């Protein structure tokens, strides 16, 4: 078995007094695609942010490439970050630059490639996400789905070893979403990148995942290969996979209490 590129041990993250992740243990091995599933607000984006050192753990640790993110120097952290790409849920493109400049930025800052080479690379990355010809647009001129794809292109710019996607295909039409799935599969096959994807799309999750992690209210509810997950008999996992709404009628008293609590 290959060595893990990312591992977390008892990872806890809090916003203020409120703990959002309650002890997460998992690892991502080299060349593996891990899909993180979970309800809205269950802490998936928070987990991704902790994996790249944007959130300080309130407990436990995150180890990337054998470096503990909370205990390394700023230089070490930067060295790690040059080898990762993260596409944010909301895109997070720099509004003061064009799409092309956004994608060129990490290349300009961290490599000594000639401007003409960078220009070609920008076009290639944009082509990969189906945005050819949009390099001179400003992010505000793009639709939500286009922003997302431009953000993916920027995450790919440095040909990273580890890629993080936060809901890459949410808000995309089915054809585009399939294109993103294909892109992820290609990246894995051609460059053996380690990839972590947060998604809500079950079909896409089962297609691209080597391993799946289901998060519920800040804890790991289930983890395993797509087959193991598909055959899981855990009630909450089945509910998620079979798309069953939270039943509201099962306990009327509890339900009533929820609304009247604290009054």
């Amino acid at each position, binding site marked *: 078995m290959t060595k893990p590129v990312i591992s977390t041990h008892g990872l806890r993250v809090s916003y203020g007094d409120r703990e959002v992740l309650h002890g997460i243990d998992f690892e991502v091995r080299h060349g593996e695609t891990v899909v993180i599933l979970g309800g809205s607000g269950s802490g998936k984006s928070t987990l991704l*942010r902790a994996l*790249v*050192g*944007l959130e300080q753990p309130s407990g436990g640790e995150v180890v990337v490439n054998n470096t503990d993110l909370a205990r390394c120097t700023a230089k070490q*952290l*930067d*060295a790690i*970050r*040059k080898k*990762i*790409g*993260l596409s*944010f849920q*909301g895109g*997070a*493109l*720099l*509004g*003061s630059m064009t799409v092309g400049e956004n994608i060129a*930025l*990490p290349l*300009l*800052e*961290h490599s*000594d490639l000639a401007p003409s080479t960078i220009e070609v690379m920008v076009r290639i990355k944009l082509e990969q996400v189906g945005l050819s010809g949009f390099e001179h647009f400003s992010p505000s001129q793009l639709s939500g789905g286009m922003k997302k794809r431009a953000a993916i292109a*920027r995450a790919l710019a*440095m040909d990273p070893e580890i890629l993080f996607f936060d809901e890459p295909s949410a808000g995309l039409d089915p054809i585009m979403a399939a294109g993103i799935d294909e892109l992820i599969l290609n990246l894995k096959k051609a460059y053996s990148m380690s990839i972590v994807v947060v998604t809500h799309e079950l079909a896409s999750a089962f297609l691209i995942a080597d391993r799946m992690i289901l998060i519920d209210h800040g804890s790991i509810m289930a983890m395993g290969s797509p087959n193991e997950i598909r055959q899981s008999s855990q009630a909450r996992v089945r509910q998620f996979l079979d798309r069953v709404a939270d039943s509201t009628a099962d306990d009327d008293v509890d339900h009533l209490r929820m609304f009247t609590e604290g009054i």
Partner: protein
Amino acid sequence: MSPTESIRARTSPVVAALAGVGAGTEQVLAYLGGLAELVGRSMASLVVSPLKRGRSLQRAVHQATLAGVRAIPIITLITFFVGVIIALQGAYGLRRLGAMQLVAGLVAISITRELGPLVAAIVVIGRSGSSFAAEIGAMRVTEELDALKTMALDPVAFLVTPKLAAMIVMMPCLVMWSDLMGVMGGALFGVTGGGFTPGGYFIATCEALAVRDVTTGLVKSMVFGIVVTAVGCYEGFSTGAGAESVGRSTTSAVVVSILLVVLIDLAFTFLFYSARPGL
């Protein structure tokens, strides 16, 4: 219950009031410490590798255009009128003493020492300090700052350093211009209503001014530039989540900057006064 609250609950109003003052002082010191750290960090990244120097310079020049060059029309207008006002006010008193010829010196000294730098600073606060806070605050809300970090780019080096460099260079330039315009405003009154010839007004101004008057204004203005940039950017970085907190940071950037600029001005003026009480 926070420590101060519990102290308040248990003790006399006097002690509680003192605790309040203590907590307030602590907050002010923490804020000033934050400003100093920000300035220190962005100064440190002024010294960059040759590879990056070109692009940092480009960004600084861009900022200098936004914050400096574009402020010239409004500064021209305001300081020119301030010059006229000072001349009018001065003439009102000096005429009765029969000392109309002193108007030129009065305008020159009050503009170069005080009003030129102050007016320029306030215009720059309104135009640039507020926009620094809004820009960085909005970037925080949209996770653009986080995106910079994940690309291994330091938001301070990327955003603050060019602004700081631009302001340190542009503020003195703006103040020189604003001094000149203020004197022109004074001259307008001097020539049309004060009985000066244009040449006479010019000579009277030069005679009244010492080089020190201008240089102290320029030194002050450099400090103003640093403070305005630091407060604007600091407020931007400490923006919370959501659009309304961007608005709040913008407001406090302006208010805090004006307060600090006036306090620093006071300190400088006091210093010059005590250093040479005779002047």
